[in-house]
């Protein structure tokens, strides 16, 4: 099974939950798809085994010996990435429109290393992750690469836990496609609910089965209730209500997963939620077998 943890809004507790699940799942393989701000390795620790440069984009390059300074490229570029026959690599989208209009073939597209993909071995199994160059493009492809590395190292039906990225854009789509189930981590705030709706719409559009949990539900019980009724309306099962728990912050500072603190109320709820998800998945597998007969 492949389970992705997403949130829409940033900072709702995706990585805390992903780290806890990694701890609980035993022999799973992990992927940190939040390539813009990867954090899971901070909690899981471990040692990097391999790091591979990642060519994530193309960038235009001008051959000054051929350039006649006609400025056609500057006029053709829609990203204001060319001025004075020099390419601004941060702005260049690698579309090649400049190369098409250049009458003397002075412009070519060259590969750009935009980050690296890393395999880290941790106490709790392998972690596939990436580090991006600052301001680099193409993070959707990088997510795909991180997930490809998972499949290279996955044995049989091994469980895959993916820590997703915030938002509803291309990195989120790349982490959602083809997974078996998505867990949305919501929070009881007006922004949390607005973002929850957007990311739930996206999951629905992509046809990914969805579950929801509410983190810090007791910080605003009224809004938690509102979030819950949205879930009921949309037939999305609510699988957990995690209480606000100062131990979560302490665990973070000690770089430990919250479930390493059995007395923590948040940990108890996360454990219960994990068991519920596994139960639902098994039930579904049975259903599938029955219906395919």
């Amino acid at each position, binding site marked *: 099974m492949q389970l992705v943890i997403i949130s829409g809004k940033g900072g709702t507790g995706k990585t805390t939950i992903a780290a806890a699940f990694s701890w609980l799942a035993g022999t799973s393989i992990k992927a940190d798809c939040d390539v813009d701000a990867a954090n899971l390795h901070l909690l899981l620790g471990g040692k990097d085994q391999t790091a591979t440069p990642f060519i994530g984009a193309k960038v235009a390059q001008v051959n000054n010996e051929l350039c006649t300074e006609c400025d056609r490229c500057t006029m053709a570029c829609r990203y204001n990435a060319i001025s004075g026959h020099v390419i601004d690599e941060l702005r260049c989208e690698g579309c090649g429109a400049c190369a098409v209009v250049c009458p003397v073939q002075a412009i070519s597209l060259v590969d750009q290393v935009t980050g690296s993909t890393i395999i880290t071995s941790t106490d709790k199994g392998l972690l596939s992750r990436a580090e991006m160059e600052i301001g680099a493009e193409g993070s959707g492809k990088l997510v*795909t690469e991180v997930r490809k590395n998972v499949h290279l190292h996955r044995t049989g039906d091994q469980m895959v836990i993916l820590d997703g990225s915030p938002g509803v854009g291309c990195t989120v789509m790349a982490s959602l496609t*083809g997974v078996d189930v998505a867990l949305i981590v919501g929070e009881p705030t007006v922004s949390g609910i607005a973002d929850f709706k957007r990311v739930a719409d996206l999951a*629905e559009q992509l046809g990914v*089965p969805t579950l929801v949990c509410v983190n810090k539900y007791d910080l605003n019980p009224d809004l938690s209730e509102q979030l819950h009724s949205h879930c009921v309306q949309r037939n999305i099962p609510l699988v957990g209500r995690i209480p606000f728990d100062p131990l979560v912050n302490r665990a973070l500072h000690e770089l430990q997963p919250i479930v390493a603190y059995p007395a923590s109320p948040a940990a108890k709820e996360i454990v219960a939620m994990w068991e519920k998800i596994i139960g639902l998945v098994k039930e*579904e597998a049975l259903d599938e077998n029955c219906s395919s007969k």
Partner: protein
Amino acid sequence: MRVCVSSTGPNAAAKVDSRFGRAPYLVFFDTEEQTYDFMENPGLGSAHGAGIAAAQEVVNQKAEVLVTGNLGPNAKAVLDAAGIAVYQTDGRTVSDELTAYKKGELLPLDRVSAPHTGLGQQQRRAR
């Protein structure tokens, strides 16, 4: 006639890759000449639209049949427009799949792999 198989490696003994757009190699087999062409899949290096790039290569290579595991909607649209028949792999080696195809043992892949269905009421209801 040319038959294309999505492959994990550049030889006939390699296993078929069930992915199409992101399979490392596309193998083209000529049934009259009994010859193989091994190409790197152009989809592999694409940030987006890998399936389209791979499908375009299959069209350009004038294959009439494709054997693979999963097909996205965009790739399917391209292959359909070119009238290329797609068959479902059983996950064996390239040469085994080609033999099975010649014997007429492979099933047509008519289902586009929508991201997996299942789990949760919302999908069940939709079925």
